[in-house]
C-alpha cells in the first residue's frame, strides 16, 4: 500500500464525508477547518519529496516540499479558509463539496513532484470548479459552465499529450524545469498558458467567473490561474517569451475593464492584468523576479478575493453587480465599502498596502534587466489597474450617482471574511518581512525607499486626477448595459457562423446537384415517353401488337382447353 498522504488527501476525504455530517454548524465548520488540517500536513516537514512510489514503472511523488510549493500551498490554504467563512450561509451541499475538491486539487497540484500527479489534479480543478458555475442553476450558467469545462479539459488533454511525448523523449515524468524547444514542452507550455489566461487563450476567465454564484466566484478567483502561474514558475522560469506574453497580458485587459459594466467581469479583467505581472516575473527568471512572482501571487490572491467578496456582497444584497444599476451604496453598506476600498488600494499598490510590496519586486526586476519597453508597459498597467479596479469599482458601486438602492449591510460572516482579508492586506503592506521570509530565494529587498514611495504616489494620484478630470468633463464613458465582444466571439459567433455557412453551402450544393440530376432524369424519361408513350410515334404499332398478343393468349387458352 503506497503512502498517499498529501494535503489534497485531507480535502478529498473531507469532501467525501461532508454530505454525511448533519446539517448545521458542524457541516459549515468543515470547510473552514479543513485548510488548517491541510497546512498541518506539510508545514512542519523539511524540504524533500514525500509519499512517493512507483506506478507502472513511473516514479510518482505526491508531496514535494520546497520553498516555492510551500508558499503557494500556504496561500491556497488561507484562501480556501477565507472563502469558506465568506460562504458560511451557503447550505448547498454541491457547492460545499465542489469547493473542497477544487481547493484540494489546486493544493495537490502545487505539491505534485511529477507530471502525472500534476495532470490528475489539473483536471481535478477543472471538474470540481465547474460545479460552482452550474450551482447558479440557470440556462446561461449551464452554457457558460460547458464552455469553461471544454477549455479547461482541453488544457488538461494538451498537458497529457505533452507529458506522453516528454516521457518518450526523456524517459521521466518528473516535474522540473523545462526548455521550450520540442513539441512536448511546447504542448505543456500551451496547457499552462490556457489555464494562465494568456492573450487570446484568456476569455474563458472573463466568461466564466462572473457566471458563478456569489460565493463561487470568490473561490474561483483564487486557484486555477495562480496554479498555472506556479506551474510556469516551476517549469519555465527565465523563458524569455513569457516576458512579452506577460506584458501583453497586463495591457489589453485594462481597456476592456474600463468599458465593462458587470463589476465582477471588470474584476476578472483586472485579474488577467495582474497575472500578466506574475508571468513577466517568471519570464525574467532572476531570483528577484521569481520572488516577485511568488509574493505577488500571495498578495494578489488576498486582495482579489477581497474585491470579489465586496462586489459579491453587493450582488448578494441587491441582486445585481452591474455598474449601471448601482451607486450610492456607501449610505447603507459602509463596511463593505471600506473593505472594498482596502482591496482597491492593495491592487493599486498604494504604499502600506500589500500590492505595493509585491508588485515593486517585479518592476524592479524588469528595470534591473534593462527591459525598458516592458517596464514602461508595466508602469502603464499599474496606473491602468488603479484606474479601473482602484477607482472604478468602489466609485461606481458605492458612490457616483445614487441608485436609490438601500440594501442592508452584508451579513456578519461576510464582514468577518472581508475584515480578516483586509487586515491581511494591510498587515502585509505595513510589515512585509514575514512574507519576504517565505519567498523562495534569499534576496534583500527594501520596498519603502523615498524614491519608490514618492514615485508610486505620483503615479497613483496623477491617475486619480486623470479620472477626476475625465469625469468632470464627461469624457469618461458611462456605465452601460452591454456585452463587449472579446476573443470568445471567435468560438461563440464566428466559428458557429462559419459552420453554419459551410452547412448552407453544402446543403445548397446538394440541392442544386439533386435538382439538376432530377431535371435531367425527368427530361430523359419525358423524351422516352414522348417516343414510346401512348401518343408517341413508336406507339403507333401498339393496336396491331396487342391484337397479336391477345390472339396468342386466346389460341393458348384453346390449346389448353382442348387437352383437358
Amino acid at each position, binding site marked *: 500500500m503506497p503512502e498517499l498522504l498529501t494535503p489534497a488527501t485531507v480535502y478529498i476525504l473531507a469532501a467525501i464525508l461532508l454530505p454525511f455530517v448533519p446539517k448545521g454548524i458542524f457541516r459549515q465548520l468543515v470547510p473552514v477547518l479543513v485548510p488548517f488540517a491541510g497546512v498541518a500536513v506539510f508545514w512542519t516537514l523539511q524540504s524533500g519529496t514525500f509519499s512517493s512510489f512507483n506506478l507502472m514503472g513511473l516514479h510518482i511523488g505526491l508531496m514535494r516540499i520546497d520553498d516555492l510549493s510551500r508558499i503557494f500551498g500556504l496561500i491556497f490554504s488561507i484562501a480556501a479558509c477565507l472563502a469558506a467563512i465568506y460562504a458560511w450561509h451557503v447550505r448547498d451541499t454541491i457547492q460545499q463539496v465542489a469547493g473542497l475538491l477544487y481547493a484540494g486539487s489546486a493544493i495537490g497540484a502545487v505539491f505534485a513532484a511529477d507530471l502525472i500527479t500534476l495532470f490528475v489534479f489539473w483536471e481535478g480543478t477543472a471538474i470540481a470548479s465547474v460545479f460552482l458555475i452550474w*450551482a*447558479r*442553476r440557470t*440556462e*446561461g*450558467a449551464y452554457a*457558460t459552465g460547458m464552455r469553461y469545462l471544454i477549455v479547461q479539459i482541453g488544457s488538461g488533454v494538451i498537458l497529457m499529450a505533452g507529458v506522453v511525448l516528454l516521457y518518450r523523449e526523456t524517459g521521466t515524468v518528473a516535474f522540473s524545469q523545462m526548455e521550450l524547444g520540442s513539441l512536448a514542452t511546447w504542448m505543456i507550455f500551451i496547457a499552462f498558458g490556457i489555464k494562465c489566461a494568456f492573450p487570446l487563450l484568456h476569455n474563458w476567465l472573463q466568461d466564466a467567473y462572473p*457566471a458563478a454564484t*456569489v460565493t463561487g466566484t470568490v473561490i474561483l478567483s483564487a486557484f486555477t490561474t495562480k496554479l498555472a502561474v506556479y506551474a510556469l514558475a516551476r517549469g519555465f522560469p527565465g523563458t524569455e517569451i513569457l516576458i512579452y506574453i506577460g506584458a501583453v497580458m497586463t495591457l489589453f485587459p485594462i481597456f476592456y475593464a*474600463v*468599458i465593462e459594466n458587470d463589476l465582477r467581469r471588470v474584476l476578472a479583467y483586472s485579474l488577467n492584468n495582474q497575472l500578466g505581472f506574475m508571468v513577466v516575473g517568471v519570464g525574467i527568471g532572476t531570483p528577484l523576479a521569481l520572488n516577485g512572482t511568488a509574493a505577488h501571487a500571495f498578495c494578489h490572491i488576498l486582495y482579489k478575493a477581497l474585491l470579489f467578496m465586496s462586489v459579491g456582497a453587493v*450582488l*448578494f*444584497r441587491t*441582486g*445585481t453587480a452591474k455598474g449601471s444599476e448601482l451607486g*450610492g451604496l*456607501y*449610505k*447603507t453598506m*459602509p463596511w463593505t465599502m471600506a473593505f472594498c476600498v482596502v482591496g482597491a488600494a492593495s491592487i493599486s499598490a498604494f504604499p502600506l498596502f500589500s500590492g505595493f510590496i509585491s508588485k515593486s519586486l517585479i518592476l524592479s526586476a524588469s*528595470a*534591473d534587466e534593462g527591459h525598458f519597453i516592458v*517596464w514602461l508597459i508595466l*508602469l*502603464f498597467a499599474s*496606473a491602468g489597474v488603479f*484606474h479601473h479596479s482602484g477607482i472604478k469599482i468602489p466609485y461606481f458601486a458605492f*458612490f457616483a450617482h*445614487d*441608485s*436609490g*438602492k*438601500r*440594501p442592508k449591510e452584508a*451579513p456578519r460572516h461576510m464582514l468577518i471574511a472581508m475584515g480578516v482579508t483586509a487586515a491581511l492586506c494591510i498587515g502585509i503592506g505595513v510589515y512585509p518581512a514575514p512574507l519576504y521570509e517565505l519567498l523562495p530565494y534569499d534576496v534583500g529587498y527594501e520596498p519603502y525607499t*523615498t*524614491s*519608490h514611495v*514618492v*514615485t*508610486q504616489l*505620483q*503615479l497613483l*494620484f*496623477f491617475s*486619480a486626477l*486623470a479620472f*477626476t478630470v*475625465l469625469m*468632470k468633463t464627461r469624457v469618461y*464613458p458611462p*456605465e*452601460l*448595459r*452591454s*456585452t*463587449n*465582444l472579446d476573443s470568445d466571439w471567435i468560438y461563440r*459567433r464566428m466559428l458557429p457562423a462559419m459552420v453554419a455557412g459551410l452547412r448552407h453551402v453544402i446543403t445548397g450544393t446538394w440541392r442544386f446537384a439533386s435538382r439538376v440530376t432530377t431535371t435531367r432524369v425527368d427530361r430523359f424519361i419525358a423524351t422516352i415517353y414522348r417516343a414510346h408513350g401512348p401518343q408517341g410515334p413508336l406507339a403507333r404499332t401498339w393496336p396491331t401488337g396487342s391484337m397479336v398478343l391477345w390472339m396468342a393468349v386466346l389460341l393458348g387458352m384453346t390449346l389448353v382447353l382442348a387437352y383437358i
Partner: protein
Amino acid sequence: MTGSHSPRAEDPARFPWLSRHLLWTSDPSKVNRLVWALVILCAGLTLADFFYHKHSHFEIEQVPGFYGFYGFIMCAALVIAAKGLRVLLKRDEDYYAPYTVESEEHPEADLGRENIDA
C-alpha cells in the same frame, strides 16, 4: 445616467454611523474641495522630486514628475482609447442570449436581498 432616487424623505440619522460620516461625498461643493486637494497634492508630489536623490534605472526617470505625467497621460489615453473601442465592441446585453448569464436575472436562491428603511 438616470438616477431612480426615491422621492420620499430619508432620515440620514438612521444610516449606519460610518455612512453618516461620509455623507459629505454627496455634496458637490465638498467634492470640489476634495478635487482641489487632489490637485494640490499632485503639485506637491511633483515638487517633492526636487528634494531627494531619485534612485533610478533609466534616464527618463530623472525627469521631474515623470511618474505623475506618465500616469496622467496614459490614463487619459487609456480611457479615450477604450471609449473608441466601445464603438467597435459594444453589443446588446442579449447578444449571446440565451447562452449567457448577461441577460438573466441572478437567481434569488443565491441571494439574500434585504433593504433597510431609512
